[in-house]
């Protein structure tokens, strides 16, 4: 049957579909316990960070903490470490220091990514140790290019099962990454590349501000955050500030509260990365991380002192 044409519209007796609520990938987003429904209103719930992570990030989940060196949700990542989540599939275009910490702390089983490094500094030693030596646990890799990952989020946000791009051609990536396939244009016959949609169980991002209805506003370099949030079944946004009204800002991305599961007020939640207009990058920390993370003991000591023994707003 050609599903684009009108097809055979014959009568059948089962009308279940008429009564069914739409149950696509986002059905859960609207019904994650008490978090999305309050007095019948669709809006993000304002929660303490610890509660948000406890309810929204679960063992075994596929989790994206996105950001392009700006607005990296470090505080939320630390809370995930404190709550000892395990077997996570971590997803991100540019896994950096917070992913190094999550990997070193044993939270991750798998990493889906396109570039893993300490931005502006060098390599990620915990990531390397996990890949090269399976410490503290083995880390499976699913490796893409930026163009592929960006388009996978776009497909996920768009409710499509795949995206099409000119990408990967001639590289060794498709030898090792199963879900890179070819697709032919139905008009020109040209062969292009297809990648499957990314639909994280939960996406966590940091933003500058939210209002009390959970509408979120971010600006500066906003990377792929909008797509990562919209692609996810659940979402948690940490913000520098909760305000009465979101006054417009040039370059802003606004995500309506009804498209977000929960918002947590975490000033400084992006440190040591920065929040444009609120803080600057703590570059010394990124440089220091290279030393801290080289050695398993100094790493564990750092996590113990700065994450495990710190509060939820550390």
């Amino acid at each position, binding site marked *: *049957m050609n*599903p684009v044409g*009108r*097809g055979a*519209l*014959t*009568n*059948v*007796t*089962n*009308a*279940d*579909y*008429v*009564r*069914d*609520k*739409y149950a*696509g*990938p*986002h*059905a859960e987003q609207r019904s994650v316990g008490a978090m999305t429904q309050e007095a*019948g*209103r*669709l*809006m993000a719930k304002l929660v303490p960070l610890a509660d948000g992570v406890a309810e929204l990030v679960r063992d075994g989940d596929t989790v994206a903490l996105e950001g392009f060196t700006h607005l990296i949700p470090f505080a939320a990542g630390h809370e995930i470490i404190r709550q000892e989540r395990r077997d996570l599939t971590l997803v991100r275009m540019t896994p950096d220091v917070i992913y190094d910490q999550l990997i070193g702390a044993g939270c991750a089983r798998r990493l889906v990514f396109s570039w893993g490094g300490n931005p502006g500094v060098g390599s990620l030693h915990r990531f390397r140790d996990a890949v090269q030596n399976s410490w503290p646990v083995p880390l499976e890799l699913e490796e893409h290019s930026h163009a592929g990952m960006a388009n996978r989020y*776009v497909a996920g*946000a*768009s*409710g*499509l099962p795949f995206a099409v791009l000119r990408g990967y051609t001639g590289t060794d990536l498709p030898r090792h990454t199963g879900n890179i396939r070819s697709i032919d244009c139905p008009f020109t016959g040209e062969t292009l590349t297809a990648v499957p949609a990314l639909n994280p169980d939960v996406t966590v991002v940091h933003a500058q501000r939210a209002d009390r209805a959970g*509408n979120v506003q971010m600006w500066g370099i906003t990377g792929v955050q*909008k*797509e990562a949030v*919209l692609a996810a079944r659940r979402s948690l946004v940490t913000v520098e500030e909760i305000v009465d009204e979101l006054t417009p800002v040039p370059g802003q*991305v*606004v*995500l*309506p509260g*009804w*498209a977000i599961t929960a918002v947590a007020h975490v000033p400084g939640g992006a440190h040591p990365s920065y929040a444009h207009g609120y803080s600057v990058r703590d570059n010394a920390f990124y440089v220091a991380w290279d030393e801290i993370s080289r050695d398993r003991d100094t790493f564990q000591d750092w996590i113990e002192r700065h994450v495990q023994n710190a509060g939820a707003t550390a």
Partner: protein
Amino acid sequence: MSQYTADEMMTVAAARQLRDGTACFVGIGLPSTAANLARATHAPDLVLIYESGCLGAKPDRLPLSIGDGVLADTADAVIPVPEVFNYWLQPGRIDVGFLGAAQLDRYGNINTTVIGGDYTDPKVRLPGAGGAPEIAASCGEVVVIVRQSRRTFTERVDFVTSVGYGAGPGDRARLGLRGGGPRTVITDLGVLEADPDSCELTLTRLHPGVTVERVREATGWPLAVADDLSTNEPPTAEELTVLRALEATMRAAA
């Protein structure tokens, strides 16, 4: 109770259909008037989405067009048109789609393309599809607002611009349409709802003073009527006051 017109009753009945806190894809004209009436009365947190890219528009007057500046000025976010369809409509994020119709059949299939003759040589060329095919496919449910007459409520639409229940039960699932389809049709005579078993549009409510016979006369197929047919409450004084004030804003802006 004030005097009111059939169009006012229709608009009020459509507005009442919208639950607070839901997200509603709004077309210009009757749907926009009804959605803004709902927001100004019982549904202050109704999220209005206009296909021009305005998410959460809160206009203080009725917009003159789908791309009126008042929509951008009051929206939570103004986004590119491709994102409206790809990021918001297509994944099923929008609860209610509000559509009009030039022709409608008993399964809620809608024509806004051509009437009479042939596609390439029509009797009347209408504006066409716009966003309707995908609104009808992907919204949680669809509400149709349309004045009822035999010319409009036809046994078979001349062109399927937007699919309702196709030829009946199971067709939406078979076509892979993920939204719920046209649950409710609001007219100037009453309210029709899709029967959950047969998918057929069934008269469930009459506007005050309208008879079943009159609705049958305005319907081009043998009309199904609900056993528990009821009569709508007439517009309240508040509903009429707000509606007329809204319409006055449009005349003022024009």
